[in-house]
């Protein structure tokens, strides 16, 4: 008869803040990226390749992607929290999301530092 | 017939200001209390009070309870009981400060104390000039107060029965009150709520008039129940017409508007209150201002196409003051009068507002039956009760004070009385509940009859026409005849909806059965009182008659019988205020 709600997980704020901080990082990166593109001497493949060979560019992009993954994780989880009620399904979806994000992460590193 | 019974220490009927204040007292004393309300507590009509609650805190200027007491006695046109008035005015500061401690969001002065504004009839030094005595939360004092009291009750874990309507008192052969029958609106179930103490805080019945500031729920349920159970109703001829209801809509515009510096104009732009009340002008007591307005309109100086209303001017206060102190008024004027008071005056007319009479009680909330004998187990407080502190006319802000003071004292009295009771509770009479069930059965079985809305409309029309601001002998006699006819028609009302779940048609039919008792008592009492006093103004007896009529009317439903009892002129500790001519 009585359904007691359990609450007080005490992590809402951390995620909410992370969502906003990562958003700021992504905005800054996006602006810089556009500026970099415009500053390319020529729009051709060698210039493009030269741009990506700088380590700062690679680390900045990696930071951007990590922020994107955190942002996506929180956002996706928010959607699941709203619409998916059964706990088992929720956990499954969370696991799939985490696995996917790790896979994307590995793939990104491969692209950035691969040949 | 079998009817379920639930047992409590105390049952409070009504969860407005006085009900909540009383309930708080009971809940904090750890009694088992049931608080019944037709609506969720914060929807009770206390929520609509605007201007303030009076207490001689003296935050703005020197003040004391003697002056407040004098103003209240004078305002009552010497019909108020001076012992009860002294009790109320002395308690005022205590209950207002208490409310502040509960969290009431009063406006503040620069020194951090509660903000106070002037109000009609409140003066310094026994009538010298208007005084700032009304403690206010902008123009939402009632709203702030009701929510604060509800919140405090949440804290005290008061048990509420929300959307339950009490239907009848249960009394035993000795006349002791043993509880009420009640209807759970959501399910249609009827039950007896048995209790050692039954406290009515059911509010007023302003809905007997067609032009009223009152909410739909103000149907005098407590008065109807009391009258049907053989308990008299006191001073029912005295109804306050608030000077400033929005013309046509009836919505209240607080006297605080005039307290903040607004004033009334006739169609010639004349500030006519200077003629009627030279000292305090627009801040005279409400009966005086309402009569002055009605006179201006009657004599052809009303504004509007048909000269049907008076103008309330406040644009000179400036948008800043209006937005800070009277934001709700601006909202109401824009919505209901189609005018922005920052620029234009608000069209207003005197509108039925408050019931000075009610169930007779002493200052401890104990209900008094015939011959002033205490009815065991029965208590009342707030607008449904007549202590009598308001006499023939209530001062603005004294109603919220009444709720706090007498809600609390009634609660305290119940706690005290229940402490003394140790034995088993008296048994319910065998036929307890039968009367209620028969009333419901009539409604359920009726296959034809008159619509409740039609009979109700006729009642309101008769009251408005025959028992308004000005009363005339022939019209009152005619009114008595007509209202008796309406009462007769009430016995054959009919509702189409017979279902159980949230049947609001049934509720309205039952409410009308309460309203008609109030209307009857009002008309009969008014016809009988051959004088003019406070809100009761007769053309054939234009003056107050202290020799013959300084007495309270007691109306009994049984045969529309009237009794009278003397006004208590002797205060508790101070010298009495001798009746004298009332000039403002």
């Amino acid at each position, binding site marked *: 008869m009585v359904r007691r709600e359990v609450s007080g997980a005490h992590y809402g704020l951390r995620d909410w803040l992370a969502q906003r901080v990562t958003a700021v990082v992504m905005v800054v990166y996006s602006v810089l990226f556009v500026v970099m593109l415009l500053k390319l001497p020529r729009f051709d493949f060698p210039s493009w390749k030269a741009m990506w060979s700088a380590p700062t560019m690679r680390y900045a992009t990696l930071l951007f992607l990590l922020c994107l993954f955190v942002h996506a994780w929180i956002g996706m989880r928010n959607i699941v929290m709203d619409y998916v009620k059964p706990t088992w399904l929720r956990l499954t979806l969370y696991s799939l999301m985490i696995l996917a994000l790790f896979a994307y992460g590995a793939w990104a590193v491969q692209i950035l530092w691969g040949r | 017939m079998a009817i379920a019974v639930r047992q409590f220490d105390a049952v409070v009927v009504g969860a407005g200001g006085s009900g909540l204040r009383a309930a708080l007292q009971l809940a904090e004393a750890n009694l088992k209390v049931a608080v019944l309300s037709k609506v969720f507590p914060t929807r009770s009509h206390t929520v609509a009070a605007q201007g303030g609650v009076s207490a001689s805190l003296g935050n703005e200027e020197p003040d004391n309870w003697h002056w407040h007491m004098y103003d209240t006695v004078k305002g009552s046109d010497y019909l108020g009981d001076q012992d009860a008035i002294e009790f109320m005015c002395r308690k005022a500061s205590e209950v207002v400060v208490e409310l502040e401690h509960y969290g009431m969001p*009063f406006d503040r002065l620069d020194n951090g104390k509660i903000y106070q504004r002037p109000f009609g009839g409140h003066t310094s030094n026994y009538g010298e000039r208007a005084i700032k005595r009304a403690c206010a939360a902008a123009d939402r004092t009632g*709203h702030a107060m009701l929510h604060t009291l509800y919140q405090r009750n949440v804290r005290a874990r008061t048990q509420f029965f929300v959307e339950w309507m009490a239907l009848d008192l249960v009394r035993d052969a000795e006349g002791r009150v043993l509880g009420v029958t009640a209807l759970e609106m959501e399910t249609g179930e009827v039950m007896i709520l048995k209790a050692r103490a039954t406290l009515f805080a059911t509010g007023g019945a302003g809905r007997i008039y067609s032009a009223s500031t009152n909410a*739909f729920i103000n149907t005098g349920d407590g008065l109807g129940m009391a009258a049907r159970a053989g308990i008299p109703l006191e001073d029912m001829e005295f109804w306050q017409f608030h000077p400033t209801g929005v013309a046509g809509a009836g919505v209240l515009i607080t006297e605080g508007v005039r307290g903040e510096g607004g004033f009334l104009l006739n169609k010639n732009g004349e500030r006519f209150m200077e003629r009627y009340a030279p000292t305090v002008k627009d801040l005279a007591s409400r009966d005086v201002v309402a009569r002055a307005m009605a006179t201006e309109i009657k004599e052809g100086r009303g504004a509007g196409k048909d000269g049907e209303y008076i103008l309330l001017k406040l644009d000179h206060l400036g948008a800043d003051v209006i937005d800070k102190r009277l934001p709700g008024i601006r909202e109401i004027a824009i919505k209901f009068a189609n005018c922005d008071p920052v620029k234009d005056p608000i069209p207003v007319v005197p509108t039925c507002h408050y019931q000075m009479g009610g169930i007779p009680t002493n200052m401890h909330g104990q209900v008094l039956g015939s011959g002033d004998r205490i009815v065991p187990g029965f208590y009342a407080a707030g607008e449904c009760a007549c202590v009598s502190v308001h006499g023939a006319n209530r001062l603005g802000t004294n109603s919220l004070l009444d709720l706090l003071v007498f809600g609390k004292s009634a609660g305290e009295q119940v706690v005290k009385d229940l402490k003394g009771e140790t034995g088993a509770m008296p048994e319910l009479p065998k036929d307890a509940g039968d009367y209620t069930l028969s009333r419901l059965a009539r409604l359920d079985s009726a296959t034809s009859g008159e619509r409740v809305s039609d009979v109700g409309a006729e009642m309101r029309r008769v009251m408005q026409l025959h028992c308004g601001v000005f009363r005339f002998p022939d019209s009152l006699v005619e009114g008595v005849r007509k209202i008796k006819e309406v009462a007769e028609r009430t016995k054959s009302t009919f509702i189409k909806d017979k279902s159980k779940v949230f049947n609001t048609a049934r509720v309205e039919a039952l409410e009308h059965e309460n309203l008609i008792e109030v209307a009857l008592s009002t008309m009969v009492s008014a016809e009988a009182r051959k004088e003019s006093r406070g809100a009761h103004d007769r053309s054939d007896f234009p003056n107050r008659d202290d020799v013959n009529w300084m007495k309270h009317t007691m109306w009994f439903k049984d045969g529309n019988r009237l009794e009278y009892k003397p006004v208590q002129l002797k205060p508790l500790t101070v010298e009495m205020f001798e009746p004298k001519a009332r000039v403002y």
Partner: protein
Amino acid sequence: MRFQIYRYNPDTDSKPRMQFYDVAMEPTDRMLLDALVRIKMEDDTFAFRRSCREGVCGSDAMNINGKNGLACITKLADLQEPVVIRPLPGLPVIRDLIVDMSQFFKQYHSIKPYVVNDTPPPEKERLQSPEDREELNGLYECILCACCSTSCPSFWWNPDKFVGPAGLLQAYRFIADTRDQTINERLDNLEDPYRLFRCHSIMNCVDVCPKGLNPTKAIGKIKDLLVKRTV
């Protein structure tokens, strides 16, 4: 005027239906509530809540042409015909326009809606500067009509866990009151991914509030305080 009204009586109907009413209005009928009262005169089986008829009691909240509002302060002249009236969305319907508000009030009660101050009360009032009092403006005026919470998708999806805009507005009303001593407990009570952080600031609540209040802003201030005490 033409009205299309949601009707459902569990005693007599197997499922809800929409019913048309054509009502001859009088010149004195200005607000939607006047029309509903007129409809009820003709058909007393139609059920809705109402009381003060001036927008302060919060009884007659309903969904009017797709938007939540109070019938008593919604002008007929501003409404497009047929006027479609439904109960507040997201709450269980008891009958016609009457919804079960238990969940809504449960959330309101969950934020401890009362000033807590355990210091011995002074003989006089507790002092509060006009500026401190000003902080309560835009908060204490709430009439608990539920227009906001029932227009909030987050409240629709998680009414049992998300406090909702009305409850959060009141939560901030007590956080902002300088007389209250339990600000930290109040913040603890809200620091939860559901109770507070289901609010994604879509501002439906602000759009519908009949009293012109801004729950989103209050929620923002709660979040600011949480950040301040963490960072």
